[in-house]
């Protein structure tokens, strides 16, 4: 008897539960009519890359604020959701799942780290959520997008291939370097940038004398810097993390490398704070970046001014690209005429978007055609040496 009654209780409670579950689903449908545009940002909000994440969020928030203040996209406001990737693929994937399953976003912008972005791609693809990358430079991301596979991934950021080429060419032709040492971060970004540097260096008669990669959070570079001092390299090719640059620069001063060996590559060599940490070590440093505050265009200057007045600090590259990518998405939704993901995706692939660094269009791998900006530190200030665009040679299938 007892058995039967508990079974009955189970049936009834199941019935009640499923009724209860269907109510919010119904109200969810009702809400969809005056829908907002739900946009998720996956970024490293904690961990070694937290500074990148904070800049990314500020950039996105600024764009959303301006768009919403101007009445939204065709009357629809953008609602921003944030999820922390901690800069690791595992956390990045669960952050992406959270945005898709719990916040039910239609669009995701993320991550800064290439390793995380590569891991997020299949998740976004399975869910059919439009995934825009704004700040990862590993070429594989768009090798595998568009006609390469992932239909929902787009990248509004130049790749390492372009960057490695531009830096190698400038270092060899303009600065006359031929002996290089590698000191890059041990990640998909750092390693692939070096891979492409190796592809192009022979063209410029450059050779690599030593090759080291550091783990995120590494603080002691004395051993490697001493080795570089002794092997006679003229420049250190560093595709590193912004937070590590001051440590390396300081230890270059300590070990007597400042002024003798030049840093080239990428890792926010050009911010005021970094230069201040070790001015002698960074003098003459060469960096290729997607954007920098000193970039000379009226829209870019206006962004720097607005960002600085809003957050009391100058924006970095990540703030800019996230700000720009939110605006790009808004334009795509406007051109699609509805926030329907599929229509927006089609609109993106056809878009001609005027960004502060030039017109943006996407190729058949959903990769934006964007220039790399080359700069050199002169008298403690970044000076822009030119912007270079190169079409990407995709590997044959």
């Amino acid at each position, binding site marked *: 008897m007892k058995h039967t009654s508990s079974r009955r209780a189970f049936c009834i409670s199941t019935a009640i539960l499923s009724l209860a579950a269907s109510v919010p689903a119904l109200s969810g449908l009702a809400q969809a009519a005056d829908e907002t545009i739900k946009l998720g940002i996956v970024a490293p909000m904690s961990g070694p890359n937290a500074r990148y994440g904070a800049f990314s969020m500020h950039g996105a928030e600024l764009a959303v604020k301006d768009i919403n203040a101007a009445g939204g996209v065709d009357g629809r406001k953008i609602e921003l959701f944030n999820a922390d990737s901690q800069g690791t693929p595992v956390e990045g994937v669960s952050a992406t799942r959270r945005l898709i399953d719990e916040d039910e976003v239609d669009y995701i912008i993320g991550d800064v780290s290439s390793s995380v972005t590569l891991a997020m791609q299949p998740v976004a693809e399975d869910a059919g959520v439009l995934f825009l990358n704004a700040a990862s430079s590993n070429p594989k991301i768009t090798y595998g997008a568009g006609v390469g596979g992932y239909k929902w991934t787009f990248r509004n950021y130049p790749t390492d291939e372009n960057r490695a080429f531009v830096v190698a060419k400038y270092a060899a032709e303009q600065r006359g370097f031929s002996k290089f040492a590698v000191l890059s971060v041990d990640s998909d970004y750092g390693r692939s940038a070096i891979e492409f540097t190796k592809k192009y260096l022979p063209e410029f008669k450059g050779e690599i004398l030593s090759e080291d990669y550091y783990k995120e959070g590494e*603080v002691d570079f004395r051993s490697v810097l*001493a080795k570089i001092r002794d092997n006679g390299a003229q420049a250190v090719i560093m595709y590193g993390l912004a937070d590590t640059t001051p440590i390396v620069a300081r230890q270059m001063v300590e070990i007597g490398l400042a002024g003798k060996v030049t840093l080239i590559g990428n890792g926010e060599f050009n911010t005021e704070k970094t230069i201040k940490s070790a001015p002698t070590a960074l003098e003459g440093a060469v960096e290729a970046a997607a954007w920098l505050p000193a970039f000379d265009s009226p829209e870019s200057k206006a962004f720097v001014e607005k960002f600085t007045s809003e957050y009391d600090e100058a924006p970095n590259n990540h703030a800019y690209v996230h700000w720009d990518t939110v605006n790009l998405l808004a334009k795509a939704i406007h051109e699609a005429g509805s926030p329907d993901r599929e229509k927006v995706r089609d609109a993106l692939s056809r878009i001609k978007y005027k960004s502060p660094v030039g017109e943006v269009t996407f190729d058949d791998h959903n990769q934006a055609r964007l220039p790399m900006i080359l700069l050199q530190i002169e008298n403690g200030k970044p000076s822009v040496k030119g912007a270079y665009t190169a079409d990407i040679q995709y590997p044959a299938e």
Partner: protein
Amino acid sequence: MFSTILEQIVNGIVTGSVYAIVAVGMTMIFGVLRAINFAHGEYYMLGTFGAWFSIDYLGLSYEASIVVGVLSTIVIAYVVGKLVMQRMVGAPAESGVLATLGIALVLQNTVILVFGGGYKFFADGYIEPVSILGFSLAQQRILILVVCLLVFVGLELMVTYSRMGKSMRAVSQNVDCCEVVGIDVPQVVLRTFILGAALAALSGVLTAPVNVSVYGGMGELITFKTLPIIIMGGLGNVRGTFFAAMILGVAESLVATYVGLQFRDTVGFATLILMLMWRPHGLFSTQARF
């Protein structure tokens, strides 16, 4: 060639000094509590944050910031010691693991909540390079080395001659007998814990100028570097810890130079595995102390 090796050995000894000051606190706490303090690196972090805060927000000098960093850590360690560590006397080993891991999470995330997760820039200290033995070294590194030696001489003397040192050794040998002869075990535990945390904080403040960046998660790595050291040194063994730290520091430095920087952290973990396989009681004792 020879001068390069010499330079790397000196680098390694400086790194080893940093590890040694942190590790000795951890090994002493193990001695009295029979529990690995997984939150030990967090006191290193707290000391550094205290110093950074007093320089950036209060405008104090670096010398004063050392005092602030260590004192603020002592206050926090007192609270943690009273609330958590004292209760671990006689508790099963797993409760110690759980409690200290929990404390690590709380301390780390509180700092991230209050100061944000980004890297802070530690701008002060004696970073001017000086030239010795044909290579240059920041003055700060010489300071670290000197302080490390002083700390270990002081600890040796304390453990051998002072009442607190003797009672620490007594507690590490037999808790029940201590209670019989009237040694206040919880108090010895509390004092040892505070001493260990203060040393970790001191190590953090001394290292900050050369490591430049200060962030919430910086203690974790130190905890994991410290583990192989205290096992190599023989758990609870002060002198052994010193030599073990130097061995690890020099080995890391040589590996970073001649094998590759990316393999640096491998050294500690490989050592840990090898030690646990062949000499779990440490390099310097013939049999397990515990």
